[in-house]
């Protein structure tokens, strides 16, 4: 059994630690990703899926991604949030690698996990990632572009020109996709195996755990249970509440991606309506208008009287006109 443990493949060891560590840190990192997205401090362009994986697999990409972005001119996004997320990921990854590493040491190696295992594993993973991932990126990129042009030229041969479009796409994709996937998988396995070797060498120096299997299970199980559960729960709940409030406060009320058809017109805000001021203003206006009407009536009466004195016939017609206007004027006066 001991020989079997010592002969464990480094790829298996690397996967056994990196895979669960990735998932352990992921939910916490995702919460921050969400808040940064809502705040608009992080934006992705193009290869969203790749950027997502690169960001969340930060134990190995923390130094590799900046190198790839700068050295190989692969632009995945913009915003201070990306750099800030990487900084935040460092303690999260150290914690995740520590939890997973301690369990793995006890379960698979039956060795006592050394102090500061999380930090040791983190810097070793980050270093391997910083050297290996840019190489992988370059090789896979070159192989993929070469395979695509090879597949194109193969299907452009005279005897294969009659192949219909759908079949042609499928065959080309199968050709270059299988070559690129094979190279990617082989290189990924080599990278994981490198990390596995480093972990195995760390484990070789650790003392053996003397308990039986049942005691070891209990031990690694209890390692994950916080000493003060109430405090942990309260801290988690508080963190959740703060992040939720931040998220909803920063979330845009209307769509941050307005469609061409639905651009909102610029509308100036109306001044607030003050009922008392509006009433006073209207009363003043009514008084002013009534005075004007009265003045006009007076003027009309004076003119009519002047004309009656001068002309007999014309005076009778003016009197008739004045009589016909009388109900309207009296109505105005009442108002």
């Amino acid at each position, binding site marked *: 059994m001991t020989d079997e443990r010592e002969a464990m493949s480094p790829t298996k060891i690397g996967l056994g630690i990196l895979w669960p560590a990735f998932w352990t840190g992921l939910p916490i990192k995702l919460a921050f*990703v*969400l808040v940064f997205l809502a705040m608009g401090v992080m934006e992705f362009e193009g290869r969203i899926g790749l950027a997502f994986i690169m960001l969340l697999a930060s134990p190995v990409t923390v130094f590799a991604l900046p190198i790839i972005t700068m050295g190989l001119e692969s632009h995945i996004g913009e915003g201070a949030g990306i750099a800030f997320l990487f900084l935040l990921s460092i303690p999260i990854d150290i914690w995740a690698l520590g939890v997973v590493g301690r369990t793995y040491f006890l379960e698979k190696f039956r060795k006592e996990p050394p102090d500061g295992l999380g930090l040791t594993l983190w810097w070793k993973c980050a270093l391997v990632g910083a050297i290996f991932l840019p190489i992988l990126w370059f090789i896979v990129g070159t192989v993929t572009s070469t395979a695509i042009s090879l597949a194109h030229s193969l299907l452009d041969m005279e005897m294969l020109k009659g192949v219909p479009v*759908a*079949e042609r*796409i499928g065959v080309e994709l*199968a050709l270059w996709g299988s070559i690129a996937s094979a190279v990617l998988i082989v290189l990924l396995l080599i990278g994981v195996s490198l990390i596995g070797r480093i972990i195995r060498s760390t484990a070789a120096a650790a003392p053996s755990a003397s308990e039986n*299997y049942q005691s070891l299970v209990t031990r690694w199980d209890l390692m994950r249970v916080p000493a003060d559960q109430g405090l942990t729960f309260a801290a988690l709940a508080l963190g959740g509440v703060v992040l939720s409030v931040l998220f909803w406060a920063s979330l845009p009320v*209307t*769509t941050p991606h307005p469609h061409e058809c639905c651009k909102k017109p610029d509308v100036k805000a109306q001044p607030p309506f003050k009922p008392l001021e509006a009433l006073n203003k209207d009363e003043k206006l009514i008084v002013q208008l009534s005075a004007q009407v009265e003045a006009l009536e007076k003027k009309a009466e004076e003119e009519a009287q002047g004309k009656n004195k001068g002309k007999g016939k014309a005076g009778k017609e003016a009197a008739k006109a004045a009589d016909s206007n009388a109900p309207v004027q009296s109505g105005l006066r009442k108002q």
Partner: protein
Amino acid sequence: MAQPSIPSTQPTAIEKVVAFIDERVGLKQMQAKMLNEPVPGGSRWAYVFGSVLLFIFIMQALTGILLMFYYVPTADHAYMSTQYIIHDVDYGWFLLSYHFWGSTAMVVCVFAHMSQVFLWGAYKKPREMIWLVGLALFGIVMGFGFTGYLLPWDQRAYWATTVGVEIMDKTPVVGDFMARFLKGGPTPGQMTLSRFFVIHVMILPAALMGLAGLHLFLFRSAGPAGPFRGTPEEIRAKTDYFFPRQVWKDIVGMATVFACICALAFWEPVVLLEEATPDPGDYHPEPEWYFLFLFQMLRLKIFAGEFGQFLGAVALPGAFMALLAALPFIDTDPERNIFKRPIALIGWILVMVTILLFTVSAIINREFLD
């Protein structure tokens, strides 16, 4: 001499309420039954998909209800009301985008859940019924995607539905009836929208709730299958109750999926095309991404013509589903370790590679159409 303080034995108000309910419905027994389920081999991340699916469904129901406050299921208002949700309702764009990406997450999780059950050999005796009900649930999830796609009433919705109904029409015996029933007329219109809306918000949710309940009941009756590897001693040593470790993993799984859907709603929020018309114009009809592989397969020469279309659209998928349904009765070998079931492993890899290859091909094919 000071007397030592005696702890109060008086129950608190909450304890009284709990005791009151417990006396009437057996709350504590129910709780014990639900939470103290032994999980052979202990809790695992691979087991979270079922709970995550239930969570996604609840969130879909919740966001769907909120969207229904504004959505008008009529041919002359569906498009405008959806635009109104996106552009005028407070957080409406986020709700709609969450609902859209939630449906995608549901399909992905159904695939993951079915793959996990298949690879773990958890469909084998005595869990055949769980597998069969699960397949029916898979059909319902696909039905949700298909019927929900029409509701925004834009060109994408209209033409995806037209293509989908035409494919359905090719089914022998019931195809013509199904297509006429769904369309409610010669071309998609008000009757189609009404029928799709009713199926989407009434029939499918009711069916899903009933079958999900049955699925859970059957699962609880048979018990979890546990890991396919490990000595009996190891499995016994690791066996744990459902609470708290598996519950914690499920919660983390749900939170992760929730955050992923929210992030996707940000990255790619729903944007409608032009309003639906019977003239496709420059738009090249295609279904939702999870049907793209089938759509691309139908473009192959081998599936050309009336018979070819029937073969690719109905016969092959039907035969595949029939094979899945018959699987627990064909594969009676009790061996569950996937590495000792080479046919199952190779078959699963082949299916996944085919789906991936044809889906990516369909995306590349867009360049040739534009």
